[in-house]
């Protein structure tokens, strides 16, 4: 390419052997946008039926699970009850709550599935989550220093983050976070580190803490007080079942969410890189910063279709049942532009997440290690 052409159509993206000019990035973005427009125009009765069936199934699992736990003194009933309640909580948090609050179902006009009023069954208040997740994380995906989901303020998940001795312990507290994931998500929004640095006011912090405590009280009262009390002498079995269901949900959502952006090939970005970012560049960053999980239809539903993390990040408000349909098309477009479409089975992807957590616990950067 001569200098003249370079000026008219400069290379604006260069990573891992792929070079794209401005017009190529915009063409890529236009293709992704066209895909979105096509699906969004086609939403209809089939999608409505899908989400209503999921809601019905979830509510049914919830009632059946809690019912069986009252008979929890019988081991098969306890196991089945706990399994159904876990299933209900996973479906509600992942395929229903997360996606409803992304406004994927606002077009139905159903107040029960509307992003502005929905609240989900865990300790994190919907209003805060919509800010930190829908806005901060989805707009600034994998931009170190902007997207607080990069390490959630407590872990070093990118070479760009400065090392600190506390990170030596992250291979251990990673598992604590996994087990207490709903609590991590709730406290995440308080942005304690910003308050300490003076970037956020104490009054705002206190307001949010009040909201969190209000929700926490209700959630704790339901699972750990009222349902056990209602069971009378069988309270211990109900309590154990509820604790287990919340734990299982926590571990599962942790697993799915960590595989979304922290796999080995998921790319991180700097604040300089996103200055004056175009729509095409934004799509590019969403594609490269996310990673997919492969599996069967049940696996996809239980992951809230976040197994299609790439499609979710390109189209956060597209109904989740459509991701599997657009995925092959997104993959085809990505490959045509020489871009990595990061996809693999859960075991392999999570293996690379653990590798990242362990590698970045130590000081230094990947480049330094490579040259060492």
């Amino acid at each position: 390419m001569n200098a003249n052409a370079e000026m008219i159509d400069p290379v604006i993206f260069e990573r891992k052997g792929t070079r794209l000019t401005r017009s190529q990035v915009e063409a890529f973005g236009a293709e992704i946008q066209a895909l979105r427009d096509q699906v969004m125009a086609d939403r209809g009765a089939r999608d409505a039926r899908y989400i209503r069936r999921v809601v019905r199934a979830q509510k049914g699992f919830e009632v059946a699970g809690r019912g069986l736990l009252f008979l929890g003194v019988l081991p098969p009933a306890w196991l089945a009850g706990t399994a159904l309640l876990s299933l209900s909580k996973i479906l509600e948090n992942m395929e229903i709550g997360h996606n409803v609050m992304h406004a994927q179902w606002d077009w139905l006009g159903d107040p029960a599935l509307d992003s502005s009023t929905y609240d989900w069954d865990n300790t994190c208040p919907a209003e805060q989550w919509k800010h930190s997740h829908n806005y901060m994380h989805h707009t600034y995906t994998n931009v170190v220093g902007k997207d607080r989901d990069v390490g959630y303020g407590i872990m070093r998940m990118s070479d760009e983050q400065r090392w600190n001795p506390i990170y030596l312990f992250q291979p251990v507290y990673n598992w604590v976070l996994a087990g207490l994931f709903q609590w991590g998500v709730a406290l995440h929004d308080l942005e304690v580190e910003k308050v300490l640095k003076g970037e956020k006011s104490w009054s705002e912090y206190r307001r949010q803490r009040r909201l969190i405590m209000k929700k926490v009280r209700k959630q704790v009262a339901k699972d750990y007080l009222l349902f056990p009390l209602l069971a009378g002498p069988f309270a211990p079995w109900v309590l154990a079942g509820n604790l287990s269901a919340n734990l299982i949900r926590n571990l599962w959502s942790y697993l799915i969410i960590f595989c979304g952006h922290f796999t080995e090939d998921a790319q991180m970005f700097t604040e300089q890189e996103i200055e004056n970012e175009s729509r095409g560049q934004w799509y590019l960053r969403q594609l490269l910063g996310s990673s997919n999980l492969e599996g069967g239809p049940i696996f996809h539903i239980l992951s809230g279709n976040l197994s299609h993390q790439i499609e979710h990040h390109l189209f956060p408000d597209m109904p989740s049942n459509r991701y599997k349909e657009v995925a092959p098309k997104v993959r085809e477009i990505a490959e045509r532009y020489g871009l990595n479409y990061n996809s693999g089975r859960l075991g392999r992807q999570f293996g690379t997440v653990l590798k990242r957590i362990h590698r970045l616990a130590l000081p230094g950067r990947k480049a330094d290690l490579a040259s060492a």
Partner: protein
Amino acid sequence: MISIPSTEKRWARRLGNALATPFTPEDYLALFNPLHSARETRARVRQVVRETDRAVTLQLQPNRLWRGHRAGQHVLLGVEINGVRRQRCFSLSSAPSDPYPCVSIKANGQGGVSDHLVRHARAGDLLVLGEASGDFVLPGPAPERLLLVSAGSGLTPVHSIAKELLASNQELNLVWFHFERRYQDLMLASSLRDLSADPRLDLRVVLSGEPPRAGDLQGRLDEHWLTEQQVDAEERTLLTCGPAGFLDTVIGWHQRHGRAPLLHERFQAAPVSAGHGGRVVFARSGGEMRTDGSVSLLEAAEQAGLKPQHGCRMGICHTCKCQVKRGRVRDLNSGESRELNNEAIRICIHAAEGDVEMDL
């Protein structure tokens, strides 16, 4: 009709809510009967009465959130069409004292809620009801001498009022002219026959498209019609409902001749102006401004000194969703132009196209 719940009921309610948090017990009861909801009044269609080849009356069985209605009021009716809930206002045609509320609906050929219900409504279907509202109601005690003038679908609220009045044993002298093209277009015909048996009502159907039966009339409404037909028309309290042009004629006649109060019901609001860019009115803060077609409603609000909630400013995060009371907007991404009526949109990617009133 608000019943005061007993202490036990209140405690049961609180316990139910605490056990179902963050949902409501009704969300679970809906598993067994979809009529249950703590959020909205839902109604099951009990019966579909085919009124004409283009009109039906739906008899509704609402859930316990339904608070009843006054004669002449309307209700926002929601129905799912191709997955999406669509809403439209209908006057209730039943009298409040009837056992079940009814709406009578005429297909209008626009492919919307009316057409859908006329064609597809079946007994057992689930609908969503808003709260009954509207000022087309008689102040109590009702005046003795009334003149009712209706046309087409305007029949429905007038029918509700007439039926309610005649259900009482009050002294009444009702004269009712209802304008229709042909008998086969007439809704609620059997009920009208029953009402006509009451000597306190003098009902005349006025036809424009075929010869009338004995007792009915032929013709069209004009500015002299009422004076010519009814000697004491000016003295009677006038209730009227019908299409816009028809209403204008009646109201015009009343302004010149009427000496008693007038009550009228308009089905469609006057159309708003459309074009590129427009005037944005902020209903809550009181300001307004002119914008051109490229300025998003979010930017317009910010230029007006407001600070609406927002996030990505590119249409993905939905943080900026805000109610547009009415007006036409253009989607800056797709270029699509849409008329809105109390609908929430992402204001960062919509611009005004004509007059837009926002809930900001």
